[in-house]
């Protein structure tokens, strides 16, 4: 039975729907102490003094640590290797200054979480307030410098792109300009971060359970920060309640918990509150920029320039400076644009760091290109679908080189657009829009034909390696164990990787277990992010199995007494061709060696056989009495897959909206998405990724915004103010697919984790802008608040 391509129910679900899974806070160790953090209440202030004496007297308090205690713990790391990048010294607890609201200032350790939280209020920190730098353009302009070791707040400047952009714009019939805002967002994994650390002084072994996307990279970095040998540190990633990039990081708290456990030789636990999560877990987006797009009068785009300010926040987290780089790479979108230039000015501000949030730089790029296409259409009075068609590369143009220096692997953008246009009946939709407008209704249609970069990625292009690993082992009983370095956090790799393996091995899905997220069990891996797990990690599983089967077929041939080249493998079974079988029957019977002791494994029945399953081969490989000469016992294989390129999924999203004249609220009429993520392993899981991605994009378009006031105070610190979409606020999504295999990996998969988030935002904004076109609107910034829309309707 073929599993790949089937809607297989997830094997991870029974434990999750029964409430029996273990997230970090569900793991209980005896004598655990609880940690709570004193965090900065100011965006920018000098610490004059910290008095911990009252806290230390409080019931249950065991220790209080401040910056001076942890001077020996290394700084929070940044993986970026950009030349001339300013990298501030990011200590795990604030030293002389605090530079964002929520920055850890002191750690209180107590016998239970209530006592720890109580004592936080007893730590007296005397601050001298400094002028906060909140606005990114103000940060660039000069004035107060946040990090006094640097001359200014500009972390780096970068210009990238190919083609003569000045000449291209000068030669255009029209040049359209538009400022666009990509507001700061909070990733909001439903499980906040959490860390449990346990140190055994005798063995000098530190175990850290953390809700992370990157257990191995975390182990390496924490070993360096804490100063423990990497092979004495074990990172375990239990069930992870969502990440969306926010757990693709190395945080101060993770190092602190490990260090505190070593100081006290007791287990210590910290579970992030939602307030802390919105304050001190990375944010996403945070760019504001100016688009210049040149075109011919027929809609052919001639050049695109994007001058952007990136709001990095106060410090670099792991990938902070890299995000605007990804924006620059993806500025060609799904189009042939001869000249592209991005000019990035990346600045420090007195806010939490921005970093990789689902899409990570690509939603920004896609938004810029797609809004630009809509602006061209509006300028020329063309249909936005036609402008896009005019600028697509043809399906025969792949691999397609962009003016941002990428080579798109495969694509057929026209096909995805045609399918979406057909599915929603675009022509009829436009007719209905005309009729609705004639009735005075406010109706709009938005379209986005995105392309994104996935399967991150070739190691040359990645700060810490871009390969992924897998070990596949068939146990003596025939059960298959897969160890993947791509530790998941909701994507369903325990099922999808088992599907790949079940087909390749011809075994039952239920005979397979996928193990991940424990650095003492699983070989080194990179992790799950950048829509890479299946394309890179799934490929590692596939190739590891192919390696394993090379050995298995040699053993099978030896036992079945035939040449390996004459063995066929099908349905999990090695079979000798008829002619070979006859020859095998003439040979000497196999004589078992020695007498099996009681309790020994059953020996495979091999006499006179012409076929054996790979699971029987596994038993023979472990018993090792009948192996070909020079063959190692056991049956396992490990493979590290290094991809040669990224992959480039694409698709078309079309959405129609109607705006309530009295409230300014936009109501979705239809939402159609045709996505192409290459070959599909499990359509049900792919649909789930698309749905979730679209709704996160919808959150950005309509509701979500991390707001700091002019003093750098976080205004949107709870779910009262930070508006994550709810079930009643999202439309029914009609999904379809085209399937263009990627040539980059043997599975042909591209990746799907971020597609929805990247493709949907401009379609939704485009629809609302289109609805408001009769009011003279050409662009609106996100989130599309009803009050702003109402004001437009009622004042123009």
């Amino acid at each position, binding site marked *: 039975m073929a599993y790949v391509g089937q809607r297989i129910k997830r094997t*991870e*679900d029974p434990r999750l729907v029964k409430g029996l899974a273990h997230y970090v806070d569900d793991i209980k160790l005896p004598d655990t102490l609880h940690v709570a953090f004193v965090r900065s209440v100011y965006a920018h202030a000098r610490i004059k003094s910290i008095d911990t004496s009252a806290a230390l007297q409080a019931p249950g308090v065991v220790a209080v640590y401040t910056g001076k205690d942890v001077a020996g713990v290394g700084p929070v790391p940044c993986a970026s290797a950009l030349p001339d990048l300013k990298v501030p010294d990011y200590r795990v607890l604030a030293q002389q200054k605090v530079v964002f609201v929520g920055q850890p200032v002191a750690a209180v350790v107590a016998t239970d979480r209530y006592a720890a939280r109580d004592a936080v209020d007893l730590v007296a920190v005397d601050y001298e307030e400094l002028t906060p730098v909140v606005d990114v353009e103000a940060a660039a302009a000069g004035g107060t410098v946040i990090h006094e070791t640097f001359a200014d707040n500009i972390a780096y400047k970068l210009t990238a792109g190919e083609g003569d952009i000045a000449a291209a714009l000068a030669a255009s019939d029209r040049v359209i300009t538009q400022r666009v805002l990509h507001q700061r967002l909070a990733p909001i994994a439903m499980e906040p971060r959490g860390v449990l650390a346990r140190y055994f002084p005798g063995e000098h072994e530190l175990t850290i359970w953390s809700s992370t996307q990157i257990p191995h990279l975390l182990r390496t970095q924490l070993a360096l920060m804490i100063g423990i040998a990497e092979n004495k540190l074990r990172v375990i990633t239990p069930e992870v309640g969502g990440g969306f990039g926010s757990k693709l990081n190395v945080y101060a708290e993770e190092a602190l918990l490990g260090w505190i456990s070593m100081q006290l030789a007791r287990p210590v636990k910290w579970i992030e509150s939602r307030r802390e999560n919105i304050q001190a877990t990375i944010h996403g987006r945070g760019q504001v920029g100016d688009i210049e797009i040149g075109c011919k009068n027929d809609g052919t785009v001639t050049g695109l320039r994007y001058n952007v300010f990136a709001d990095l926040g106060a410090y670099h987290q792991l990938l902070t400076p890299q995000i605007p780089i990804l924006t620059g790479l993806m500025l060609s979108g799904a189009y042939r644009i001869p000249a592209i230039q991005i000019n990035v000015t990346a600045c420090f501000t007195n806010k939490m760091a921005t970093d990789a949030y689902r899409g990570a730089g690509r939603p920004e790029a896609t938004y810029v290109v797609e809004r630009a296409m809509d602006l061209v259409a509006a300028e020329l009075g063309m249909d936005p679908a036609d402008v896009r068609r005019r600028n697509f590369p043809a399906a025969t143009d792949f691999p397609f080189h962009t003016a941002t220096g990428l080579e798109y692997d495969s694509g057929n953008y026209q096909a995805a657009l045609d399918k979406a246009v057909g599915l929603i009946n675009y022509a009829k939709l436009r007719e209905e829009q005309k009729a609705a407008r004639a009735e005075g209704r406010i109706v709009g249609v938005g379209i986005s034909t995105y392309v994104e970069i996935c399967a991150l990625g070739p190691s040359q292009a990645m700060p810490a390696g871009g390969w992924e690993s897998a070990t596949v082992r068939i146990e003596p009983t025939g059960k298959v164990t897969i160890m993947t370095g791509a530790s998941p956090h909701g994507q369903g790799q325990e099922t999808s990787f088992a599907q790949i393996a079940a087909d390749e091995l011809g075994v039952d899905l239920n005979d397979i277990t996928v193990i991940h997220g424990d650095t003492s069990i699983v070989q080194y891996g990179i992790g799950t992010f950048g829509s890479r797990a299946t394309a890179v990690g799934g490929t590692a599983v596939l190739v590891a199995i192919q390696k394993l089967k090379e050995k298995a077929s040699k053993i099978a041939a030896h036992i079945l007494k035939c040449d390996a080249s004459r063995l066929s493998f099908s349905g999990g079974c090695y079979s000798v061709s008829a002619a070979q079988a006859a020859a095998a029957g003439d040979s000497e019977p196999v004589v078992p060696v020695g007498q099996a002791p009681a309790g020994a494994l059953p020996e495979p029945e091999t006499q006179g056989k012409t076929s054996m399953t790979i699971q029987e081969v596994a038993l023979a490989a472990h018993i090792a009495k009948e192996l070909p000469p020079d063959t190692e016992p056991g049956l396992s294989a490990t493979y590290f897959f290094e991809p040669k390129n990224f992959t480039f999924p694409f698709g078309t999203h079309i959405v129609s909206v109607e705006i309530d004249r009295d409230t300014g609220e936009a109501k979705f009429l239809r939402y159609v998405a045709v996505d192409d993520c290459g070959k599909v392993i499990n359509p049900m899981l792919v649909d789930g990724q698309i*749905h*979730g991605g679209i709704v996160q994009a919808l959150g950005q378009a309509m509701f979500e915004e991390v707001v700091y006031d002019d003093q750098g105070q976080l205004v949107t610190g709870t779910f009262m103010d930070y508006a994550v979409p709810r079930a009643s606020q999202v439309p*029914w999504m009609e999904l379809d697919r085209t399937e263009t295999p990627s040539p980059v990996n043997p599975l042909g998969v591209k990746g799907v984790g971020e597609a929805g988030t990247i493709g949907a935002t401009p379609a939704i904004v485009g629809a609302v802008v289109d609805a408001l076109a009769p009011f003279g609107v050409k662009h609106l910034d996100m989130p599309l608040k009803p009050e702003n829309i109402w004001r437009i309707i009622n004042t123009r």
Partner: protein
Amino acid sequence: MKRTISLTVNGVAQQHEVEPRLLLVHYLRDVLDLTGTHVGCETSLCGACTVLLDGQAVKSCTMFAVQADGAKVTTIEGLAKNGDLHPVQEGFWERHGLQCGYCTPGMIMTGAQLLDRNANPSRDEIRHGLEGNLCRCTGYQHIVEAMEYAAQKLS
């Protein structure tokens, strides 16, 4: 200072001395070790901590354990009967109504109450009924389908 509470949790009588400020969710998780009920926001806005209290879906992060004195509490661990999944649990599995699984116990408890009150809800009624529960992974569509599956199964 401590108060004695007696309550029934998943059909089992419990009696403990607790601090008056102990939240119900921490009582369930830390005292009874029923860790299927999760904490997602501490402000009753996300619904991850939803349990049934005398048949009503409540957010156990904004209720004290002492307020549950004398009550019958059902948590996600108590929903399956004789090893058979509740139709809502089954629906979530069948229709891929969960990804990371963190919101799932609360979502399922709310869903169970919803079907208790309205055996044949429309899609809009399902969405309205689940408004108090946030999910960041699924975009809710498969959750709506899971609820439709469960409603059909129950009818």
